[in-house]
Structures are given as structure tokens and as C-alpha cells.
């Protein structure tokens, strides 16, 4: 065991944490509103869009992340190149674009599909009786949704949003395949010079463990904060 290498690589990998965090948080933040929109389409069974939403969701959820990344990274830039440069003559350097952008796109597409299912099931857990009560006191259906149903659905969705964020965080370790310099990629590259793979993997392990634990703590706190109304306090 090369302790010096272990420590050096650890700090090198730590410096790559912002990239990992950026990809994860950007994907989830993009996924939240769009996933919600998709969930809305599925719940209201909006014409034309509904079957598309269903197909998209099952496609994204049924295929392995690795495959999506490889497929996307090998085809999208060439595809964009054909459209933007050969057809539209915009002369954008598609192949020089920072691969982080592509990673964010891929992980956002995955997040959208999964979050739409999270939101859909969360909204369906809220008793429709509350919506009826809202209509009877004069709220419009849209007001009933955003004032009564959605705030409660968000709370019950938090643990699942946490799970998904955790999965994406771990999934970003695959972004090295897109030449993104995130935690895994940095450590692996360092190891490849001296063949100290064990040390590199230990470093990666520690970093993901810390990040994952932090994330779990954040989401647990968020859940507790948002579900104040569920706390059973002894009645006065």
C-alpha cells in the first residue's frame, strides 16, 4: 500500500468534487420542473403528449445508465454537428464543447424520467377528498393543486427525490467515459501511471461515501422540516 500516493490522489480527487456535484445538482434541478411537467401530462392523460411521455419514461428507466451515456456521447455530438454546421451552417465547434455539458444532458434526461414517476405517485397518494373540499370552498382546480395537493405531494416525494439524487451522484462516476474530469476519472487517471489502483479505489470509495452520507443527512433534514404538519404534538 502506497500511503503517500493514497493521500496525494485523495486530494486530487477532492479537487474534482465540484464537477461531480455540479453534474448531480444541475441534473436534479433541471429534472425537478420538467419531471413535474411530465408527471402532470401522465396524470391528466393529456392528448398526444401522454403516450409520448409514457414511452419516454419507460425507455429511460429500462435502459442501463452506461448504455445511455455511451449511446449519447457517441451519437449526439455527431448528430448536432450535422444539424448545426452542415445544415444550418452555424459553425459551432460541437466536438470541442465541454463534455460536462453532455454529461448534464444525459443525467437530466434520466432524472426527468425518474422524477416524473416520483411526482406522479406522490400526487396520487394525496386523498382526492382534499381536492373536493378545496373546490367546495371556492378554489379553482389549479389553485387546489398548487395550494393543497402539490405542497403535500412534495413532502411525500422528498425521500424518493433523495434516492434519485443519490443514484445520480453515484451514476456520475460513469461520466469518466465521456472524458469528464470528475472524481472517479481523476483518481483512475492518477492510478494508471503507477498501477496503484487499490489506493485510487479506496480514495474514490471514501469520497463517495462522504458525499452520499451528506446527501442523506440533507434530505432527512429536509423531510423533517417539510413534514412539520405531520408531527403529532400532544393536543393542548
Amino acid at each position, binding site marked *: 500500500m502506497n500511503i503517500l500516493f493514497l493521500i496525494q490522489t485523495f486530494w486530487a480527487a477532492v479537487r474534482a468534487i465540484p464537477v461531480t456535484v455540479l453534474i448531480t445538482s444541475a441534473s436534479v434541478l433541471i429534472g425537478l420542473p420538467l419531471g413535474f411537467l411530465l408527471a402532470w401530462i401522465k396524470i391528466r392523460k393529456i392528448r398526444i403528449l401522454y403516450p409520448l411521455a409514457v414511452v419516454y419514461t419507460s425507455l429511460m428507466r429500462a435502459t442501463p445508465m452506461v448504455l445511455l451515456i455511451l449511446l449519447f456521447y457517441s451519437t449526439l455530438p455527431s448528430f448536432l454537428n450535422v444539424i448545426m454546421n452542415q445544415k444550418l451552417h452555424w459553425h459551432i465547434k460541437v466536438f470541442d464543447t465541454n463534455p460536462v455539458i453532455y454529461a448534464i444532458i444525459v443525467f437530466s434526461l434520466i432524472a426527468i424520467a425518474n422524477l416524473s414517476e416520483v411526482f406522479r405517485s406522490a400526487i396520487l397518494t394525496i*386523498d382526492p*377528498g*382534499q381536492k*373536493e*373540499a*378545496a*373546490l*367546495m*370552498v*371556492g*378554489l379553482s382546480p389549479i*389553485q387546489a393543486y398548487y*395550494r*393543497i395537493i402539490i*405542497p*403535500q405531494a412534495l*413532502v411525500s416525494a422528498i425521500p424518493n427525490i433523495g434516492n434519485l439524487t443519490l443514484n445520480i451522484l453515484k451514476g456520475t462516476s460513469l461520466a469518466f467515459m465521456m472524458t469528464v474530469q470528475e472524481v472517479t476519472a481523476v483518481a483512475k487517471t492518477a492510478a494508471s501511471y503507477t498501477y496503484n489502483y487499490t489506493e485510487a479505489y479506496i480514495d474514490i470509495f471514501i469520497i463517495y461515501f462522504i458525499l452520499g452520507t451528506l446527501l442523506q443527512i440533507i434530505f432527512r433534514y429536509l423531510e423533517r422540516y417539510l413534514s*412539520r*404538519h*405531520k*408531527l*403529532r*404534538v400532544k*393536543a*393542548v
Partner: protein
Amino acid sequence: MLKVRNFKKKYHQHEVLKGIDIEVNQGDVVALLGPSGSGKTTFLRGLAFLTPGDSGVITFDDQKINIESATPSDIKKLRRKMGFVFQNFNLFANKTAIQNVEEGLIIGHKVSKPEAKRRATEALKKVGLQQYANHYPSQLSGGQAQRVGIARAAALNPEIILLDEPTSALDPELVADVLQVIKHLADEGKTMIVVTHEMAFARDVADKVVFMDKGLVVEQNEPTSFFDDPKSPRLKEFLSRISAVNVADNSFEYEKAVQK
């Protein structure tokens, strides 16, 4: 004030309501009785278009609605005159007791916030829950939750309050408080339709008792004749099955609760 003609409703092939005719006058308390599956709740929910009927005519004051051709704005206008109290309360779980009452005032009826607070406080006071204003529904007992539900409906001062088995989901000991609150509303002259299984309450508070069975109104009468002198064999059978002793002994139980 409210007149319903030939109200029909089918679930798939099963005809739940086969043409209900009912008339409610200003200040009336109408108790709707009948065995399970007779369509009482379906009818009440149909009146508020929560589960709309298939056909029939609802006339409310000067508004006449043909159920088949009702538009969303017709329904909205009709609902504005109605309050609804649900069997399982349906309080907004993310809002406190007072916010539950204020919601309809501020958002639904565009009342200013201070005025809404004043009215909501007063409504909670009337149901005896002033000190629970800042409790969330999960912190209330069933009886308290239902009283908030009643306050929420009554605070909007609707012309009629529809109550769908308001005490059926409650522990027996909590029923009395809720019935007492409903009786108060009746004493104030509120017009109400109550679907209920509380015979003593129906007898004591209602101005008119309507008996439904198998999707039809079988008999309706003022309470004394209804209970003491039932005309139709079906109602006689129904009343004989509910122990007469029960009715006699438990009557005014909610009055007793108040004296405590």
C-alpha cells in the same frame, strides 16, 4: 329554495339513483336516511357535482341547471351557494385549523386577510375550537377535525350546507359534540341536508326526514309522523330493524354532553 327533479345516476350498468325528486325550503333541515347502498351519499355528492349525476334538473333560487348540459361556470356558481361537510373531514393536511377555514375565505371568496382571520376565528369559536386554531389536522381528534370541517363550510356563509354522514367516521364518544354543533347551526336557521344514521338526531333536529331505498325516495314526512307512523312497508321494516330502544335511550345524548 332548492328543488331537484328526476335526478338519475348510473355506475356502469347499475342504476344507483332512479329519479330523485326533492324540495328544500329556506331554513329547513332535511335528514336523508336509508340503508347502505340506497344512494344517499351519491345523491348528496351529485348535488354539489362532486360526482355529477347523469340527468335531472337542479333549481336553486333563480338558477336552473340541467345536469346533462351543466357548464363549469354553472357548477361554480352553484357551489358558491353550498357548503359541504365530508364523512372523513377532508381537512387540508398542510394547513392549520384556522388556515383551513381562512383558505376558502381568502382564496375562494376574495375576503381581505384581516377580515378572513376575524371570521375564521369566530367560526372556530362557534364550534368550540378557538384554542386549537394553530393545530394541524393530524393533531386533532376525529371529532375536533369534523368540527373544523363544519366551521370551514359555515364560515363562507353558504345558503345551504350539505353534510355527508358527518359522524359516521367518529368514535362513538365524539359523536355528541359534532351533533351539537350541527344542531346549533340548525337553531340559527341554516338550511341543511344531512345524510345520517343518527335516528335520534334526525328525529330531534330535522324538519323533514326523507327515506331512500334502492335509488328512490320511498317516503318523506315530518319527523314525528315519520318515526311513529311510517306508511310504506319498506320504511316500517327499516325502522323495526333499528332497535326502538336505541332511539329512545340515546336521544339527546348530545344534549347530555353539553350539560357535563
